[in-house]
């Protein structure tokens, strides 16, 4: 146990280092993009004169590294700063968006992870049967359609033809939980279709991979039912790759949903970040990327810890 604690502390420290590296990359990446906030906001209406005034007003006339340092200092003292574009507190700006994003991601995860595990275990159990092929074909087809296309198809059936769910997810903060779930049903379903195949196939592959191992042969010879073999003996040992893929997909549900947000007009963090990148609102981009990166690092850490806990060899390295 102490070993795990050590790993966790170590990884947290490394996580901070990663965050620092990301903030550098993002800041100077956006800095390298042609144009800045003043030009982006004025758009076609920009002239050299007005851009110059705007830059001074925004403090963009200061060199990039100074702006970065003052941001870093703010971050260290718990101040995310204000959006350059509209001078709003970033913590306030991001707060609602983040809770929306986590709500949608959590909703989709609550459907997709159990579903994927269930389908994957069944597929491993009934491998090469008709069931296996049908599930495989269906999930593969659903992930080979681009997200927005899956979304449009769901909208066609469930919003336009049947009228069961709204075609856009106009969620605001004062909705009840039931209303929120109802309004985010289609985006959650879209995300489920997008991530379920990956996790389900990895579950199936990891289990099948173990079924040939000597210890499973042994269990099988004892005459234990195939379902029990999988659940008791194969699954625990197959957890490492499965948990890894689940972590990647969970991260995706939080970080990568910008297209679903656009199609369903769902006010989440992804949209905010894309907007801010295209307008070069660097403090907001930095704050978003810090949040995304933290989510990713935490999920990864959990995945690694689960892998370690389930594999005694990793738990007690020589």
């Amino acid at each position, binding site marked *: 146990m102490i070993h795990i604690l050590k790993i966790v502390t170590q990884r947290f420290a490394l996580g901070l280092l990663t965050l620092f590296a990301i903030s550098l990359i993002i800041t100077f990446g956006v800095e390298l993009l042609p144009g800045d906030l003043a*030009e982006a906001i004025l758009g076609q209406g*920009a*002239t050299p004169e007005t851009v110059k005034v705007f830059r001074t007003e925004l403090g963009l006339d200061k060199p990039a590294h100074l702006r970065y340092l003052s941001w870093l200092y703010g971050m260290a003292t718990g101040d995310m700063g204000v959006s350059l*574009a509209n001078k709003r507190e970033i913590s306030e700006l991001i707060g609602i968006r983040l809770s929306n994003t986590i709500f949608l991601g959590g909703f989709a995860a609550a459907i997709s992870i159990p579903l994927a595990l269930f389908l994957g275990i069944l597929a491993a159990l009934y491998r090469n049967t008709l069931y296996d092929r049908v599930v495989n074909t269906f999930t593969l087809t659903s992930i080979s359609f681009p997200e927005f296309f899956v979304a449009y198809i769901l909208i066609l059936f469930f919003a336009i033809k049947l009228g069961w769910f709204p*075609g856009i997810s106009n969620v605001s903060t004062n909705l009840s939980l039931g209303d929120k779930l109802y309004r985010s049903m289609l985006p959650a379903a879209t995300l489920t279709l997008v991530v379920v195949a990956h996790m389900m196939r990895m579950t199936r592959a990891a289990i099948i991979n173990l079924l040939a191992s000597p210890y499973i042969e042994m269990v099988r010879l004892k005459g234990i039912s195939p379902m029990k073999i999988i659940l008791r003996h194969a699954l625990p040992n197959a957890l490492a790759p499965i948990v890894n893929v689940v972590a990647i997909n969970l991260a995706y549900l939080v970080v990568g949903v910008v297209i679903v947000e656009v*199609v369903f007009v769902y*006010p989440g963090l992804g949209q*905010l970040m894309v907007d801010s990148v295209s307008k070069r609102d660097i403090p907001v981009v930095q704050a978003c990327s810090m949040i995304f990166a933290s989510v990713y690092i935490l999920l990864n850490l959990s995945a690694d810890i689960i892998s370690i806990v389930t594999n005694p060899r990793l738990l007690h390295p020589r």
Partner: protein
Amino acid sequence: MDSKIDHIKEQLMSGRITRREFAQRLMVLGIAGTSAGTLLTWAEKTQAAGKRGGRLRAGIAHGSTTDTLDPATYENGYMSKINYAIHNHLGEVDHTGNMAPELAESWDAQNGAKTWVFNLRRGVEFHNGKTLDSDDVIASFQHHMGETKSPAKSLLKQVKSIRKDGKYTVVFELSGGNADFPFVASDYHIAIKQAWDGGKISPNDGIGTGPYVLKDMEMGVRFFGTRNPNYFKSDRGWFNELEMLSIVDPTARSNALATGEVDVIDRVDLKTAHLLARKSGIKVEETTGTKHYTFPMRTDTSPFDDNNVRLALKHAVNRDEIVEKVLFGHGVVGNDHPIAPSQPFHAATLAQRTYDPDKARFYAKKAGGIKVKLSAADAAFPGAVDAAVLYKEHAAAAGIEIEVVREPSDGYWSNVWMKKPWGACYWGGRPTEDWMFSTAYMGGASWNDTFWKNDRFDKLLIEARAETNQAKRREMYFEMQKIVSDKGGVVVPMFANYVFGTSDKVAHGTMAGNWDLDGDKFHERWWYS
């Protein structure tokens, strides 16, 4: 004859023409006497009149989390519609394209259109109860003058001084005569806001004199406002509540309308406009305005500094096919100058340039062969990449080689437009010929995206601006259009209509075409039938 009468009756009922236009058309049809009288009485009773009530929900194609309420930063269609919901201006463009009084009751030009006197309407209240006076107007103008980021700055350079003459009169002194100054003074940026202590406006306060009071707003997501109970126009601002959602994806927008989530959408996806119109309960409508899509060439850069190259390229494009396949017929061909057919001084007698591979080949040969790159992105205008691809194929038939470069939409206006030698661009157009030409065609103008300079053109432009004799003015503008078309650096293949969709419960009068959705004032002018 009966079918013709039915047709205009229908137009009146749907609000496409006014009662006066109805009467004029009856005269054209030769209907007089009692039958005309009956029809006119019918028209009076029928003509749609506004009805109060309801909540209008609109899905708008723009909007970004980085938008702000500061009028100096209004750049997209979402903020423009919010602007017109909460603010008023000195004047407004009406459905005939003329300037109608709004916060100014009247105006008067003196001294060869060098001095302009605006008389303000009395008793107009801001949303917080303060009464409008000349200090507010002056402060609102000063927000866009001097050290400012406002794009309206270059428009107001001609203003030498503004002063008040009593509580309700504002006097502008211009550096040169400008017969169109009321248009300039009503530019959408110059929203009239309250002057706070210190004589400055507070640009982000969201307070104006407009038809709706801002209640709640999340930038890039949603705007919510309620009817201004003290609105000074008694026959405008019919809805009790106004909600505008930013729906950037075109398919999401038409889905929102189809499923009844919103009642109005702008910028209908042209590819599917005919399919949307077929749905029950939905109307697809369009207005013709000054919006045009262009391919500006930098005339200060080789090979576009050679007019033979420009003429070759102007002859090498099949405009009809582009209008058919990029606009799906929702527009008309352009004639390589920016003046729309609906504008008063449009040179209709100027011969329409057509697709002529032989002529193109002839000019290309004179230029010693042409091989160029054309930069495009859908940020320039929807379908710009497709239009460029079509252009490439058309030009290939004349032996001209065009390589289409798809640029990232991100940062298109700062990295590609006016930077790359040849690209795609869009202009919402300007309500007056002078304004359009001064903005983008006068030598050295900030937005002269062809970097073109023609002495004769510049001279005519200054002269026509101050000319008050309409016939003489017309002649000058005709010549200027010909010069741009024959010598300028821009290919204007098309003028695009504004196409939008509404629920059939929404009614309106004759619409203005200066912006999308009835001059971006749909919330003020429309109502629920």
